[in-house]
């Protein structure tokens, strides 16, 4: 919402300067985004008089203008359609910097004709968006005078962000009311402006709504004005509009725009001679269309409120008028409308048809229904004053909808909720200044909400009203104490796992990435996704359409981008959500990582090698370990989902059903589909499938029981079938004597031909830790024999001779 200090002062009697006003606005919750003093920026622009405008000899769309600049005559080639002899415009001489383009204007030759300056549009001089034509100044604007003062731009412009609850402040008068309540000045009341009607309004108005749509238009006021003459607005009105970046069009249009900005009261003026018969306000019928004033044709549906005559739809209530009954310079008889349209319906209509209009913006934020009749009177008065003509009596259909009932307000709530002790008199004064009706009620006050504040519903709203005027800065900060002195853990064990896994993976040399939760559908399909229930209905781009089924594709694509930038060797991980379906349970917490290229930098001590499945396995184990998975109970089985290499991937299981992790080299076909060079290995750890930490009677660990007797290690090599896993050999050996065997580790594997087809050799080291006495040779022999027997029984493996 933009307005100038001068405009504000037509509603607020104040001596305050613009800085004080800006500060007060922000303190009231009307956040000032910018205060612009444009007089300085516009100093080089002056009023120019086009003494002659001729068509360019070699270009249809260009005009050659001779401009009197006050300091002499200058020839200007102009591209605007409205450049013509006799008009006055905003002239910039060569050398002037044009704010809209940021360029210095140069003398030039355009299609063979010299041009030594420029006639500017609103956008070019940075005062608005309009670039349809050049600015037209009033005929009596003094030639050579600073354009800023003629445009009313020597008046500081204040731009305020209005929150969606404050429809009343989408007009200058509402802003003035807030400022007056805050003590910045005295509100100048709107003067009663009723215009006596001289004849009966010839256009009948009726509502045609079913009961469930009765609130679509609660009130519709209309009147005819006949025998007027439309034309350019007077200076003061043109300047008002120009000062906030609007282009004056004609008096009738300018008047409605002015009242919209001045009082947050949208209005519409129809050309009465183009209306056929009486008007009906109703919901649109399927298939009806409207050619609107923005030049577009809209298809309507039965959720939208329309104003019709006997020939069909004339305008979309509260949103936009129609082309067929629009006012022109030739309009003589008009019909003025002021109405109250339902905010919700207006918002929905505007959104469906994608129409952003000043009227919609205000109606959906709440127009004061009680301003309907004063609004039509104010419009009538201005029209009659500026265009002449004679007004009819007003036809009122419907009534001002009943406002909210009064609110009982216990003023002690200001302290209880707001935390600041505001004197009761001051609270009452603030409410009254804002237009609330206040009367005593036993132990409390009764507050009647003004019609322009539909956002006020209860005590909490009234507390805010008192506080924002009293000043949020005067609320003393109170110590925010907690129960007890010491802190407790902020997280439950399960979310804590995510942080623990992340720190452990980073400590293992991996770099954490955070990638989007969505990706392209094709990528989702490669990783088990593509469920249409997880495809966004309104994706922001074709690359970000599906909720990710896995974290791997984003990480793999990140590897590619880094490789393209010259970093092919890297290790990335991410801890975040993956989506199996659209329910809360379908969202899993996953730690996933990838390694690409070589396992480390080229180094004089360590020969390079490509990353492989065992890198991924180690990473998965680190994440699982940090997250508290029971490492000793994990079983590894070969094979993982289709995006992994079928022979170089595995799953880590807990019991027969729960898979806690997948790891492996990424399938070359998947890499090819992602256009990524391998090798890349990766893992996915499903953190929320981990069992909850066991409840224990305390943190005490079991006794260590370190033995004083010497430990012994014995090595064995077994020949087993190639399809038997090393883990089976280790587990069998471990089970041979649970008391004595403290650990089993694999230190070699071998697959030479002499072992026979389908055979391999696994070498293990078994560590024996006696607890009662040093082992004798015979005892060691006995344990060795049971290890060999156990391995043989479990795997068919025999001791390699």
């Amino acid at each position, binding site marked *: 919402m933009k307005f100038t200090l001068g405009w504000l002062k037509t509603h607020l009697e104040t001596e305050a300067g613009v800085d004080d006003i800006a500060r007060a606005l922000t303190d009231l919750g009307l956040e000032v985004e910018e205060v612009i003093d444009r007089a300085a920026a516009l100093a080089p622009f002056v009023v120019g008089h086009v003494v002659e405008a001729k068509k360019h000899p070699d270009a249809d769309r260009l005009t050659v203008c001779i401009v009197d600049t006050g300091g002499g005559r200058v020839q200007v080639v102009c591209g605007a359609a409205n450049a013509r002899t006799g008009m006055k415009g905003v002239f910039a001489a060569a050398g002037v910097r044009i704010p809209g383009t940021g360029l210095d204007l140069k003398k030039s030759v355009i299609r063979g004709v010299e041009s030594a300056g420029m006639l500017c549009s609103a956008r070019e001089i940075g005062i608005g968006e309009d670039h349809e034509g050049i600015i037209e100044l009033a005929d009596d604007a003094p030639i050579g005078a600073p354009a800023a003062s003629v445009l009313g731009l020597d008046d500081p412009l204040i731009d305020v962000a209005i929150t969606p609850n404050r429809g009343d402040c989408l007009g200058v008068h509402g802003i003035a009311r807030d400022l007056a309540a805050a003590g910045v000045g005295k509100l100048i009341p709107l003067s009663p402006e009723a215009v006596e009607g001289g004849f009966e309004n010839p256009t009948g108005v009726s509502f045609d709504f079913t009961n469930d749509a009765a609130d679509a238009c609660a009130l519709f006021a209309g009147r005819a004005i006949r025998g007027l003459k439309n034309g350019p607005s007077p200076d003061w009105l043109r300047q008002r509009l120009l000062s906030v970046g609007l282009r004056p069009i004609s008096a009738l249009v300018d008047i409605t725009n002015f009242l919209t900005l001045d009082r947050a009261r949208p209005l519409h003026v129809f050309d009465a001679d183009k209306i056929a018969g009486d008007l009906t306000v109703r919901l649109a019928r399927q298939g009806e269309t409207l050619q609107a004033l923005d030049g577009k044709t809209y298809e309507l549906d039965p959720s939208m409120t329309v104003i019709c005559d006997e020939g069909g739809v004339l305008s979309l209530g509260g949103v936009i008028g129609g082309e067929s009954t629009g006012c022109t310079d030739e309009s003589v008889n008009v019909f003025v409308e002021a109405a109250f349209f339902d905010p919700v319906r207006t918002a929905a209509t505007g*959104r469906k048809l994608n129409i952003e209009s000043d009227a919609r913006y205000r109606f959906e934020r709440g127009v004061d229904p009680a301003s309907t009749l004063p609004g039509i009177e104010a419009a009538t008065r201005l029209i009659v004053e500026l265009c002449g003509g004679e007004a009819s009596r007003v036809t009122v259909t419907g009534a001002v909808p009943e406002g909210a009932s009064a609110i009982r307000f216990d003023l002690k709530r200001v302290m209880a909720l707001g935390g600041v002790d505001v004197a009761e008199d001051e609270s009452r004064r603030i409410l009254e200044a804002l237009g609330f009706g206040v009367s005593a009620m036993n132990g409390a006050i009764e507050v009647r909400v003004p019609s322009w504040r539909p956002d006020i519903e209860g005590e909490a709203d009234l507390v805010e009203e008192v506080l924002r005027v009293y000043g949020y800065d005067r609320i003393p900060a109170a110590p925010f104490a907690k129960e007890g002195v010491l802190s407790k853990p*902020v997280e439950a064990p399960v979310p804590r796992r995510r942080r623990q896994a992340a720190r452990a993976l980073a400590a293992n*040399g991996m770099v954490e990435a*955070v990638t989007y939760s969505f990706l392209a559908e094709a990528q989702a399909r490669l990783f088990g996704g593509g469920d249409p229930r997880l495809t966004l209905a*309104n994706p922001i781009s074709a690359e970000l359409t599906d909720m990710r089924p896995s974290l791997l594709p984003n990480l793999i694509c990140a590897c590619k981008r880094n490789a393209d930038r010259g970093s092919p060797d890297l290790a990335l991980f991410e801890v975040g959500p993956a989506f199996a379906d659209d329910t809360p349970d379908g969202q899993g917490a996953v730690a996933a990582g990838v390694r690409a290229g070589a396992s480390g930098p080229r180094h004089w001590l360590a020969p390079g090698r490509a990353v492989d499945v065992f890198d991924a396995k180690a990473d998965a184990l680190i994440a699982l370990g940090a997250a508290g998975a029971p490492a000793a109970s994990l079983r590894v089985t070969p094979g993982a989902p289709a995006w992994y290499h079928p022979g170089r991937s595995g799953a880590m299981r807990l019991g027969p059903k729960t898979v806690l992790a997948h790891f492996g080299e990424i399938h070359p076909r998947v890499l090819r589909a992602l256009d990524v060079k391998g090798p890349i290995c990766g893992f996915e750890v499903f953190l929320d499938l981990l069992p909850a930490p066991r409840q224990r009677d305390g943190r005490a660990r079991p006794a260590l029981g370190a033995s004083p007797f010497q430990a012994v290690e014995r090595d064995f090599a077994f020949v087993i079938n190639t399809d038997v896993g090393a883990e089976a050999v280790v587990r069998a050996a471990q089970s041979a004597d649970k008391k004595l065997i403290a650990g089993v580790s694999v230190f070699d594997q071998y697959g030479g031909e002499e072992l026979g087809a389908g055979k391999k050799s696994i070498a293990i080291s078994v560590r024996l830790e006696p607890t009662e006495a040093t082992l004798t040779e015979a005892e060691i022999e006995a344990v060795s024999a049971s290890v060999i027997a156990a391995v043989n029984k479990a795997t068919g493996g025999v001791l390699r001779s």
Partner: protein
Amino acid sequence: MENLDQLRNQLLAAVAGAEGLESLEKVRLSVFGRKGLITERMKGVGALAPEERKDAGVALNAVKQVLADAIDARKAAFEDSGLEERLESERVDVTLPARPQADGRIHPISQTMDELLAIFGEMGFTLAEGPDIEDDFHNFTALNIPEDHPARQMHDTFYLPEGPDGARKLLRTHTSPVQIRHMQKTPPPHRIVALGRTYRCDSDITHTPMFHQIEGLVVDRHTHMGHLKGCLIEFCRAYFEVDDVPVRFRPSFFPFTEPSAEVDIGCKRGGGRLKIGGGGDWLEILGCGMVHPKVLANCGIDPEKFQGFAFGLGVERIAMLKYGIPDTRTFFESDLRWLSHYGFAPGDVPSMTGGLAR
């Protein structure tokens, strides 16, 4: 006895004359070996008369000790000179690089969230969680954002397809639905934070379609706006590690709080840099307010008895401000150079007592 002195001197000369470890060993054997000169003499002592035996033994032992020390000393000297030679031959170029250790990094978003948890944990908050894929009720309706309310348009919501029941799920536009789920599940009092991914279909230099928020909620019988100010002022000072950073509360509007406020912190702009602290400029960093009575009622909490505050802020935004990261889009590009530059060492775990940032 002269004889013994003579022998001693002779043998000491032999030790001194040895040219290396080998010849020293020969000398040692000639003295202490089975047939060595001292060994023989020791045997001779046994044959003496008892009264002579003691004196002779003492004298001989003294010589034996002197010789043994001399041989040890000579041996150590020979060994030392050998070791030094060997070590000299083992010299390497210590300026060569050490074995490589990969440098892992924690993403600034994770680090910032850990900092937030450290601060709010210290204030007695605990973490609550909710899903990224939400429904209309939790994301909007329960938060007092009715359909067709202009506030809904401010949210630029991502929707999933309509289900068989005509309802469509959406990606949460803020972390506030976690408040609703928490209040529905457990009775008051509440003191929770929710942290996580949020989504809006908006993308330009200052917006990404996904970003992170932290949300706080306090509900009890007595917490008022003064406490809200106290809590957030302390938070701002702790997080930005500027003890006197000015904090300003401005009235604003959110459908789920009443009264509502936006919070600015003081800053200083100049020379292309932004410094958090006094200096005349203001920077908006979060939104907050007293929980709207309708929100409490929507969660089955009696607004006549309970009240409290809620706040929400963008994690990327405050990470950018604190750590001088210029562009929000870069957070999600996974550029190794960016991650290494702005990332954190895995050992830098933020805590209020151990320090928030290094």
